[in-house]
């Protein structure tokens, strides 16, 4: 048996890690706003963030391909600035995956912030805590479980991504060939043994990550309301 090519696995983990990090940074303020706003635009924003849940990944990938291509204003501007394209690049995958996995970050965080509610934050304000202090010292620790759930779901969801990557990134070894694409390719070319190795690897890895998270969650119950 050939030694399986592990490059897709490494690339996938890198992609999932970067996307999770980026989404925690972008998703937290979005979730915060959704949790506490009284704006009439809230349902619109909620529908927009939930869109990737219901859209077929190919649809999302298609629009992203169009938007990020060097011929579009956005992709063109990027191309003239950096000399490289967003499509068929690792960065393009990051952008696509961030959009694709957005609801998996925003929704658990929004629920967690809503569970904290305005009460403790008002109490913190009356104890001389400013807005960022209130987030850092009260909301974030009280919503710690939400952060954990959001991270795990985002990471796992990016790990299994296929359609968007296929549309947007193609199949460039070491650059955009993530594990799901590699498995697809191996099955297409009837290399079942290699497909088994990667699939089983992904299966076991995913299970172990989830197990770890739930174990931590159980042994160190972060916050009960």
């Amino acid at each position: 048996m050939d030694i399986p090519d592990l490059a897709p696995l490494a690339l996938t983990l890198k992609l999932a890690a970067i996307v999770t990090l980026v989404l925690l940074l972008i998703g937290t303020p979005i979730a915060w706003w959704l949790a506490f706003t009284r704006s009439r635009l809230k349902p619109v924003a909620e529908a927009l963030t939930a869109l990737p849940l219901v859209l077929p990944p190919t649809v999302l990938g298609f629009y992203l391909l169009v938007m990020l291509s060097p011929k579009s204003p956005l992709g063109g501007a990027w191309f003239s600035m950096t000399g490289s394209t967003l499509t068929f690049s690792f960065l393009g995958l990051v952008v696509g995956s961030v959009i694709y996995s957005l609801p998996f970050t925003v929704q658990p965080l929004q629920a967690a912030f809503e569970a904290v509610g305005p009460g403790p934050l008002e109490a913190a304000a009356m104890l001389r805590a400013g807005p960022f202090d209130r987030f850092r010292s009260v909301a974030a620790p009280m919503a710690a479980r939400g952060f954990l759930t959001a991270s795990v779901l985002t990471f796992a969801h990016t790990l299994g991504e296929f359609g968007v990557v296929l549309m947007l990134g193609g199949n460039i070894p070491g650059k955009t060939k993530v594990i799901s694409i590699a498995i697809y390719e191996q099955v297409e070319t009837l290399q079942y043994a290699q497909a088994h190795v990667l699939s089983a690897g992904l299966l076991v890895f995913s299970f172990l990550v989830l197990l770890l998270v739930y174990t931590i969650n159980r042994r160190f119950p972060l916050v009960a309301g």
Partner: protein
Amino acid sequence: MTGVLRVDVKLQLGAFALDVAQDFALSGVTALFGRSGSGKSTLLRVIAGLEGRAAGDVVMAGQVWQGAAWIPPERRGIGYVFQDARFFPHLSVRGNLEFAHARARGLGGPGLDEVATALDLGPLLDRRPAALSGGEKQRVAIGRALLTAPRILLLDEPLAALDEARKAEILPYIERLRDQAGVPILYVSHSVAEVARLAQQVVVLQDGRVLRAGGVQEVLADPQAVPFLGPREAGALLGAVVAAQDSDGLTRLETGAGPLWVARIGAAIGSRLQLRIHAQDVILSRSRPEGLSALNILPATVTAVQLEDDHGATVQLRAGDDLLLARLTRRSVAALELAPGVAVYAVVKSVAVAQGDVAGAQPR
């Protein structure tokens, strides 16, 4: 203007409208009194800056909090005790107190040990907030508010969720706060007994508006206040001095209305007390009653007669320097031909000590 908290605000919340223009004295306890839904808590939230949509002015001792400028809640220097305590569940009691203390460093507030001692919080410090009883919660919440080195304390019905025994346990702490901390207190309550016991000033709210405001003695002895205080709760509040401990177990009190005898009060001669005389505990007679078991009979003059919608009536009397209220039937008012200026004798059936430097002041 300095020395007062000037509030002139309007706020629409659905069908409810708050519309209050009122100056609050920055000394002692001012009670915000009213039924639930009258806007007491909302007014407190507006003062704290927690109702961002309120329009108008809030000026604290010359510093504009809202109006020409906006000072965010965290920079107003308010100690706020919420009805539902609102602890941070991820922190211990000590952690909750330190949260406040750490953010008030260098502001000259009390130390954690000092507050913990004053409120007897020592045994609670290492507990989780969820493991506190109702009374303990309120003590910790008061302690946490004090540790912010506040310029003013806003207490939103701190006793509402407690039973009578727990209330009696917390009240002395609040009294000590009033007498020793030197921080003005706005105290929301719907209990006349609490108001009489704690407050010097009272602002009565109804449907989001100020109905009456003034000294607590003056407002409680206002016959027109009876409908919103409730006939059972209405009654005058008068100052008294412990004059003598008689050998037969009675204590003689000197009041502006004359001497009153009550069952022995454990207070030193010369101690000052506030007495509550419920309107329904006062009987009137046109001539000096003879052969009556009641000890406390005060000559008085009718100053106002307020007929109620039902069969009842409230009569305000001047006895010496003090005002009293008596609750009668309209039939009695007619039979005795009571009208302002008529001389009567007020038979006081029972007297309650509302406030004073008596340990566990005994009613009656």
